[in-house]
């Protein structure tokens, strides 16, 4: 038997193809991108449960005009027991509780997404830029950040709202602008380690300017824990809004769950359905947010994409 031949060019090319094909299986376990994320997210039962809860709340809120049996501001016999006509009863002013719950979801979700989104945007920029630039800018900035974090947020919000008004957009903005420091802190910590990575150094060596580097390389790779934190912030926003409304500081033009709690607080014994319903609604939304947040964290943390061979 003679010993042949050199491996041909085609054979070498085929080797690479085979190698890539053989990597398919491992690829799915380590892929980046939205699809992989969704796949892994949906593999977790709690995350799925949370998504369903969120979905229910969101659907009710979106389709409120179609679902709600009555106008939430319409007045009917007050303190009516749950029964025919008013499934969840009526509050002391005569408003239908069920309709208020359905419409109230909109406010809660607006706060959740609005405040969290604002907090995310501001926090990311305020954390990434000083973190990347370093030096004095970073030093000054970190001190400022720490000071901010020490101030009790809830009292600050209450103070601002009490003094300056409770228009819903305004309050969402206030919340977003007081929540961002925790995102900034997380983002900054990520940036400090990511800016030392090879691909960032390579981009610098290639002559790319700092701003594109920060927003094309550093932020996307460091966003994971910030996103996870954002889901928690959504829950916080919902709860804070409920608290504000409960204290009577909510926007009187809006129907909100906290408001219902406020209305029913004196009737806990005689008409408990007034406080039970919004309580359950808030709990549902918060559970959903927490489960989803937990699911997101789990997917993003252990080895989402940066698998070594």
């Amino acid at each position, binding site marked *: 038997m003679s010993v042949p031949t050199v491996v041909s060019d085609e054979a070498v*090319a085929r080797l*690479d193809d085979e*190698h*890539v094909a053989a*990597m398919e299986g491992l*690829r799915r376990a*380590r*892929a*980046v991108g939205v699809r992989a994320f969704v796949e892994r997210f949906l593999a977790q039962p709690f995350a799925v449960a949370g998504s369903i809860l969120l979905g229910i709340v969101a659907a009710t809120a979106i389709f409120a005009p179609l679902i709600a049996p009555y106008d939430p501001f319409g007045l009917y016999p007050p303190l009516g027991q749950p029964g025919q006509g008013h499934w969840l009863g009526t509050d002391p002013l005569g408003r239908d509780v069920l309709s208020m719950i359905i419409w109230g979801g909109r406010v809660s979700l607006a706060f959740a997404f609005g405040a969290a989104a604002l907090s995310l945007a501001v926090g990311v920029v305020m954390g990434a830029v000083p973190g990347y630039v370093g030096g004095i800018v970073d030093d000054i900035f970190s001190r400022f950040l720490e000071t901010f974090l020490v101030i009790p947020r809830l009292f600050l919000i209450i103070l601002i709202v009490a003094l300056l008004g409770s228009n819903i957009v305004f309050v969402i903005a206030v919340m977003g602008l007081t929540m961002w420091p925790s995102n900034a802190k997380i983002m900054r910590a990520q940036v400090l380690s990511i800016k030392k*990575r*090879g*691909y960032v*150094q*390579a*981009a*610098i*060596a*290639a*002559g*790319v*300017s*700092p701003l*594109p580097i920060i927003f094309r*390389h550093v932020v*996307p*790779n460091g966003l994971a824990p910030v996103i996870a934190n954002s889901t928690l912030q959504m829950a916080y926003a919902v709860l804070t809004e409920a608290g504000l409304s409960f204290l009577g500081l909510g926007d009187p033009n809006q129907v909100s769950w906290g408001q219902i709690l406020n209305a029913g607080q004196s009737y806990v014994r005689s008409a408990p359905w007034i406080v039970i319903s919004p309580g359950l609604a808030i709990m549902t939304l918060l559970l959903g947010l927490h489960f989803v947040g937990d699911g997101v964290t789990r997917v993003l943390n252990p080895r989402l*994409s*940066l*698998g*070594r*061979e």
Partner: protein
Amino acid sequence: MDHALEVKDLRKHYPVRGSLLGSIGVGERRVVHAVDGVSFAVAHGEILGLVGESGCGKTTTGKLVTRLEAPTSGSIVFQGRDIAGLSRSQLRTVRQHLQIIFQDPYDSLDPRYTVEMTVQEPLLAQRVDAAERRRRVEETLDMVELRPARMFMSRYPHELSGGQRQRVAIARAMIVRPTFVIADEPVSMLDVSIRAGLLTLMRKWNRELGVSFLFITHDLGVARYMSTRIVVMYLGKIVETGETEAIIGRPLHPYTQMLIAAVPDPDPRNRRAEQELRGEVASAIDPPSGCRFHPRCPLAAAICADKEPALRQLRDGRLAACHFAE
């Protein structure tokens, strides 16, 4: 321009963080002497090997030359200009001609970027249009033997092997057609059986396109294979320079001798005489007085602790920093 790159008396000192008193300015500021007065030159079309163990300052030297860090003092003359003090925007034109390949193939590619996006990035900074970028990416991927280029362009780093990733990194460095490349341990994290392919690629690049290299490595075998001349560093200073075969065959500085003696060799025909391997690398914060190697040196005498030996010229154009080398 005489040389592709000329470095003179380069220094980089890092402040040592940590002590409470130090951070409020009390007491002497402690400093890591990472690079402490290094001078060398790389001729056009040459591959200069920068060799040493960890902590000797070779990687820092590489970062200084690419201006990823700014030197504490000293000059770096590239294309007739001293780039040591230039600002980022001033460096942009320089960066087209001076590129770097990093050690870690798992770290030097953005996991969220496809190969195409990674390789074309330097062109974005040079403001080349999209169609031209795509053409050059294909062309360069073909040059680094990632074929078929089209297939590789849409891949993500995690779908590639270590060797393939390193080729992508090389492609990214090559795409702007630099005249000078710093290669910082480019194969040390790869399997031995695939190193040769990448080393051959870099040699081809050097031979056919005339690209000069500063090749940083701790592996003497690789340094020997790639470089025409070698610079040996220890604790932030150069201890010996010269032609590769001359240094390997007859090392003049005691540290170089120790380094070569320590390398195991698979070929039983090359068994060498046992030489004493003494001591450990000292601290770069408080380096030994006089000659930094003296605590470990078999030739050490009183003068070695007092007076630091200058890098002096010996016969055959070789340089060594030792009182007793000849």
